[in-house]
């Protein structure tokens, strides 16, 4: 009994100690999804994010002297669970990372009231680029409309799009529908026919109907807005129907090594736009290995760590880290609050030099943000599957943001009107 009492007392003291440590850190919850139908794509991303933060804690003692309290709240990619996670973590969080366009759209109005920045790197609602209207939301370093524009630009580089037919194969989900307004606008401008083909969540692994339609339509290109099991389903059907893989291009979430490994050599030529790229020789990888992997604190493995999604997870945490560091420097305090982090995220200047200082050489293009530009519009590289891995097949592509700046502004304003009263950052001049 005495022993039990001692153990119980030790447990209480330990938990209090842990609580104190957490209270002193910067709480950056991640609304992760390591389970459910999208887990296969979620796991490497979450591992990359977690390993980068663990590396900063181990190597530098956190950021600017403050430890990072990086905690995951499992959503299984369910919007309802995501909102629950947001509510559960918002009390002491300096940021929320919702990890799904559906969850982002749900928490978007809430963050105005709770005054917590949403960090949705490469996903979420494209008009979030308008920082004046979406003052608490960031989709750094590039949004879906940037992706759609860059993909269309790349295709146009192969020849005029006038009279061509492009199938837009997308998940029938807020994420999949997100680029449709821009794709429709581009179709009108460039004279190509756009054929949207939706894939239901229950049909992700059985897309024979969608690919029969593609066979019937005989498109010149297929642009895929896929996620999770949809990617592998689409790529295997494309191989099966003998669709030329070099004419199939996906968004950055449809460029996961594990999906392509299912078809291996048959997937050669498939492309995916990406604002991140793995670089095994980058100093950050050596530091993660030394401080996290070798210490037995990583959930990842060598194969996963060489993939596109793991390295993207690293970049996502690096963006958050840079926002934190920028805010700490400006406000001269290690323990920043959500409002200060917002300022930090609005003033990131990720130059080539800074990328190199962070040890991220070749892993992310340069970009900068401002109070009116919450995306950064970094641009990206076109990656191609060579049968074993993704390789870069283009120089840095940059989106013609000016071409759809008006669409961003009008969509943002439409959203604000539909959700009135919507607070706008009147101090933001651009």
């Amino acid at each position, binding site marked *: 009994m005495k022993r039990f009492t001692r153990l119980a007392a030790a447990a209480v003291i330990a938990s209090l100690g842990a609580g104190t440590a957490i209270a002193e850190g910067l709480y950056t919850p991640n609304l992760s999804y*390591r*389970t*459910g*139908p*999208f*887990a*296969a*794509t*979620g*796991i*490497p991303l979450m591992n990359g994010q977690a390993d980068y933060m663990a590396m900063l804690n181990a190597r530098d003692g956190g950021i600017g002297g403050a430890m990072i309290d990086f905690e995951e709240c499992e959503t299984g990619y369910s919007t309802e669970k995501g909102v629950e996670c947001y509510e559960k973590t918002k009390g002491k969080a300096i940021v929320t990372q919702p990890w799904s366009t559906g969850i982002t759209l749900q928490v978007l109005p809430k963050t105005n009231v709770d005054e917590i920045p949403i960090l949705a790197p490469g996903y979420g609602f494209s008009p979030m680029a308008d920082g004046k209207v979406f003052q608490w939301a960031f989709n750094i370093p590039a949004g879906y409309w940037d992706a759609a524009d860059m993909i269309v630009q790349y295709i146009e580089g192969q020849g005029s799009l006038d009279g061509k037919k492009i199938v837009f194969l997308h998940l*029938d989900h807020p994420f999949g529908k997100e680029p449709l307004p821009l794709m429709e606008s581009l179709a009108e401008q460039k004279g190509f026919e756009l054929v*949207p*083909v*939706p*894939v*239901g*969540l*229950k*049909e*992700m*692994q*059985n897309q*024979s*109907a*969608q690919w*029969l*339609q593609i*066979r*019937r339509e005989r498109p010149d290109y297929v642009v895929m807005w896929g996620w*999770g*099991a949809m990617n*592998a*389903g689409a790529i*295997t059907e494309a191989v*099966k*129907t*003998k669709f030329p893989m070099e004419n199939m291009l996906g968004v950055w979430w449809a460029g996961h090594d*594990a*999906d392509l*490994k*299912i078809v291996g050599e048959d997937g050669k030529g498939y492309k995916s736009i990406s604002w991140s790229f793995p670089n095994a020789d980058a100093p950050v990888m050596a530091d993660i290995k030394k401080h996290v992997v070798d210490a037995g604190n990583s959930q990842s493995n060598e194969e*996963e760590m060489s993939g596109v999604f793991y390295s993207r997870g690293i970049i996502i945490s690096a963006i958050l880290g840079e926002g934190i560091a920028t805010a700490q420097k400006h406000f001269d305090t290690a323990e920043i609050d959500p409002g200060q982090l917002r300022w930090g995220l609005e003033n990131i200047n990720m130059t080539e030099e800074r990328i190199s200082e962070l040890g991220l050489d070749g892993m992310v293009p340069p970009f900068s943000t401002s109070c009116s530009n919450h995306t950064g519009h970094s641009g990206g590289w076109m990656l191609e599957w060579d049968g074993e891995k993704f390789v870069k097949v283009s120089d840095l592509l940059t989106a013609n943001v000016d071409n759809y700046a008006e669409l961003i502004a009008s969509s943002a304003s439409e959203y604000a009107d539909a959700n009135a009263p919507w607070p706008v950052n009147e101090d933001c001049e651009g």
Partner: protein
Amino acid sequence: MLNDIFVAPFVDMFAAPDFLMQVLWEGLVSGILYALIALGFVLIYRSSRIFNFAQGIMVVFAALTLVGLHAMGVPAWICILLTLGVMFVLAVVVERVVLRPLVGQPDIILFMATIGITLFLIGLGEIIFGGENKVMITAELGIPTGSVLLEPFGGLLILEQKDITAVIVAALLVVGLLIFLNKTRMGRAIRALGDDHQAALSVGISLQTIWVLVWFIAGIIALVTGIAWGARAGVSFALEVIAYKALPVLMLGGLESITGAIVGGLMIGMLEKLFEIYWGQPLLGGNTETWFAFVLALIVLLFRPQGLFGERIIERV
């Protein structure tokens, strides 16, 4: 509009008969796989009146076990045997730990227990195998992976060899199952339990043995289904979602009918493809497969509440 509904689709079918054949083939492949999942539900329901919510996750668990064992260096065919062993152990554990203590409880309690089994298997599967997408060991199992190109009516018909294999194996499994249920002592015992629980028990049929047996058969079906679906787009927890496609099959065919599961699966597989291609995509923007089967099943239920092949419900008041 009337032309688009009643004339144009049929003109399209006649104009491109090779394409129509491709649509029917894809529907047949999907249908037979739906039928397999539905069979797992039916077998368990017939013998125990339990609607087994865990059938979908059993497909994932069986496929993950197979692939996971192979990743450990076990030869493919030994993996099959070991996976069958795992599914047998699972059947025994389910009967001992979950079903036996709940004998005599209302159906809803047993149904909830299968939801518990689902959650347990999801957690166990993720802990042991992880949530990453895995490649099915198609080649190692000797499943051919090329395609057969035919040119009916001067057109093109593509038949994937792994789909042909899936259809043949599924058909053999169904035939074997029907022979087992109709011609063997144990099979007849399962049917007897389905027909009249009390009468079956009174003649000495062991409830426990039959439950283990049907859960094991459902496990075998899950393994075959997992291999067939996994060969198409990898093995991941997303496969579980496919089990929901079996629900309209059950509504259509009847929860207790093996013939209903087979006919219902094939009907839904083919009709949903035909509807999607010739009506859904041109008129409704596509993705009708998510709801078509349910609407079809509901229409059938309006006229036959017990499903096409279910037993007529007679309530004495």
